[in-house]
C-alpha cells in the first residue's frame, strides 16, 4: 500500500548574490515560508540538497530553527541536488516511511567562488580546464555547426527568460534585452556570451511533502523519475545531456500515466546556459529535434505561447544556487498550479513539469537528472 503524495507548501529565500547573509538566514526564509504555506510546525524527516556544503551545513542551518533529532539526510547530485532531495522525500512519503517530510535546497556560491565554479581537479576534464560554461559551449558550438540553431536563437532564450523575470520579485536579474545586446555581451566560452550564462547566486528553497488528502491547496505529485548518466562519447548521437533528459522524462511521464509531454501546461527546466534550454525542450519532446532554438525565437516557449518554459526567469535570471535550484523550480510550478504566480501566471495551468540536470563528471551524460510532474489541486 503506497500513498499518493502532494506538495503541501513551498518557500524560497530571495535569490541573488548576498554574501552578507549566511545559509542559516537563507534557509530560514525558505523553511519558514514553506511551513507557513503548509500550515505545519514540524516534520518527520528532512532531505537536504547541496553541492558545495560545507560538511554539516544541513544540521547547522536546521538546528537554528529548532529542527533537531529527526533524521536529516544530505544529498549531492550536482545541479539536480535539490530535486534529488525532493525525489527522496517523495519516496519516503509514498512508501509510508515518514508522513511529513521537508525537502530543502541550499547553496552559497558568492563566498565560495570569484567567478565561474572552479573545475574539479579530481575529474579528468575538470583538471584539463573545462569550466562548466565551456562544457555547454561545446554543445552550443556543435548545434551551430550542424545548423540546428543560430546565434540569434541561442540569444532568444536569454531575451525570453530575462523578460519573464521582470514579473518575479525573487529573481536575481531581469530586463528587456534585445538579441543584439545578448550577443554583444562579453564572450565567456565561444559561442556563449555573458547574458547566456546563469549568474553566481546564493539562495535556499524548500517544499513540505505529505500524503495527498485532496486539500484545496495541495499540488499532487503525478509522477517523477531520477536517473544518473550513462557513458557519453564518440558513439552518442546527441550532444551532452540530451539523452539523459529524454530518458528520465520518459520514465517520469510513464510514472505519471501521461502519454504526451504536450499535455503539460507550464515547465521549469534547466537553463544554466541558453543552449541547455534548447537541448532540453527537444529532449523532452516538447518541440521537434533541431527546433528548440526556433521555438524560443518564435515565442512558442514564452509566456503566452503554446508551451511556456521558465516563467520564473529560469536559472539564467532567477539565479542558480546549485542545491537550491531544483526546489525553486518546484516552488514556481506549485505557485503556477495554485494560480498564485501573479503577472507571470500561465492561465489555467493544470499540469506542470520540473526538469533539473546536473553534470561535470567526465564520460557521463550528466551526473543526474530529475523530472517531476505536478498537478493542480
Amino acid at each position: 500500500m503506497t500513498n499518493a503524495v502532494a506538495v503541501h507548501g513551498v518557500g524560497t529565500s530571495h535569490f541573488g548574490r548576498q554574501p552578507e547573509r549566511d545559509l542559516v538566514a537563507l534557509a530560514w526564509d525558505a523553511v519558514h515560508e514553506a511551513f507557513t504555506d503548509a500550515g505545519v510546525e514540524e516534520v518527520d524527516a528532512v532531505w537536504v540538497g547541496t553541492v558545495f556544503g560545507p560538511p554539516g551545513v544541513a544540521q547547522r542551518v536546521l538546528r537554528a530553527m529548532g529542527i533537531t533529532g529527526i533524521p536529516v539526510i544530505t544529498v549531492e547530485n550536482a545541479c539536480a541536488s535539490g530535486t534529488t532531495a525532493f525525489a527522496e522525500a517523495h519516496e519516503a512519503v509514498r512508501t509510508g516511511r515518514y508522513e511529513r517530510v521537508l525537502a530543502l535546497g541550499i547553496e552559497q556560491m558568492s563566498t565560495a567562488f570569484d567567478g565561474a565554479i572552479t573545475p574539479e581537479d579530481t575529474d579528468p576534464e575538470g583538471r584539463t580546464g573545462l569550466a562548466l560554461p565551456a562544457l555547454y559551449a561545446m554543445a552550443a558550438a556543435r548545434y551551430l555547426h550542424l545548423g540546428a540553431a543560430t546565434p540569434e536563437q541561442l540569444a532568444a532564450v536569454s531575451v525570453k527568460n530575462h523578460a519573464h523575470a521582470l514579473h518575479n520579485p525573487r529573481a536575481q536579474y531581469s530586463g528587456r534585452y534585445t538579441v543584439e545586446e545578448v550577443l554583444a555581451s562579453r564572450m565567456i566560452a565561444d559561442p556563449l556570451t555573458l547574458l547566456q550564462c546563469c549568474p553566481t547566486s546564493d539562495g535556499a528553497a524548500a517544499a513540505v511533502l505529505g500524503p495527498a488528502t485532496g486539500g484545496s491547496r495541495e499540488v499532487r505529485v503525478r509522477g517523477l523519475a531520477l536517473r544518473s548518466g550513462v557513458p557519453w562519447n564518440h558513439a552518442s548521437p546527441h550532444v551532452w545531456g540530451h539523452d539523459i533528459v529524454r530518458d528520465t522524462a520518459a520514465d517520469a511521464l510513464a510514472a505519471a500515466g501521461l502519454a504526451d509531454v504536450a499535455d503539460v501546461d507550464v515547465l521549469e527546466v534547466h537553463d544554466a546556459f541558453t543552449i541547455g534550454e534548447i537541448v532540453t525542450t527537444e529532449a523532452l519532446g516538447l518541440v521537434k529535434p533541431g527546433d528548440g532554438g526556433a521555438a524560443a525565437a518564435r515565442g512558442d516557449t514564452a509566456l503566452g505561447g503554446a508551451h511556456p518554459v521558465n516563467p520564473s526567469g529560469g536559472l539564467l535570471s532567477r539565479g542558480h544556487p546549485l542545491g537550491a535550484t531544483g526546489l525553486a523550480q518546484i516552488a514556481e510550478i506549485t505557485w503556477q498550479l495554485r494560480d498564485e504566480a501573479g503577472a507571470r501566471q500561465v492561465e489555467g495551468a493544470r499540469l506542470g513539469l520540473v526538469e533539473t540536470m546536473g553534470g561535470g563528471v567526465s564520460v557521463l551524460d550528466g551526473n543526474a537528472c530529475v523530472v517531476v510532474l505536478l498537478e493542480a489541486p
Partner: protein
Amino acid sequence: MAAVDALEEAVPHPITVDPRPQVTTGPDGLPRVLGIRCRACGEVAAYRWPRCPACRGAVEPAEFGPDGTVWSATVVRIPVSGRTPPYALAYVDLDAGPRVLAHVLPAGGPAPVIGSRVRLAEATPTGDVQVEVVP
C-alpha cells in the same frame, strides 16, 4: 624525461594521482592515449579503469590515436584557476577510439573548425592532452 620531471616538480599541486588521460609514445614515435577496450561490448575509454563504464564487462589495455576528428570546440575566455585565458579546447574523436578533451596548439590560438582532422601532440609538461590541426 629528466627535464619533464624537473618541470613537474616546479609546478606543485596537491593531488598525487592525475586523472587525465595518459599520453605515451607509440612504436612509430607518435603520441598515443592509453586506455581500455571492453572485451564484451567493445566500448573504449581513454582511462585505465578496471571495468567497462558502459556494461561493466572485463577490459583489456588499449592505445588510441594519434589521429582524430574535432567533434566540437570552444575558447575559454574566463579566468580558471591555474590557467591563463584565452585557451582553446576541443572534444576530439580519436580514430577507432574514444572522445578525448584536448588543448589545441598553438596555445592561445583559435578553436579548430569542427570536423577538422587533428593529431595528438605530446602532453604538456603539466599533463594536458594536446592536439594540433593536421594541415
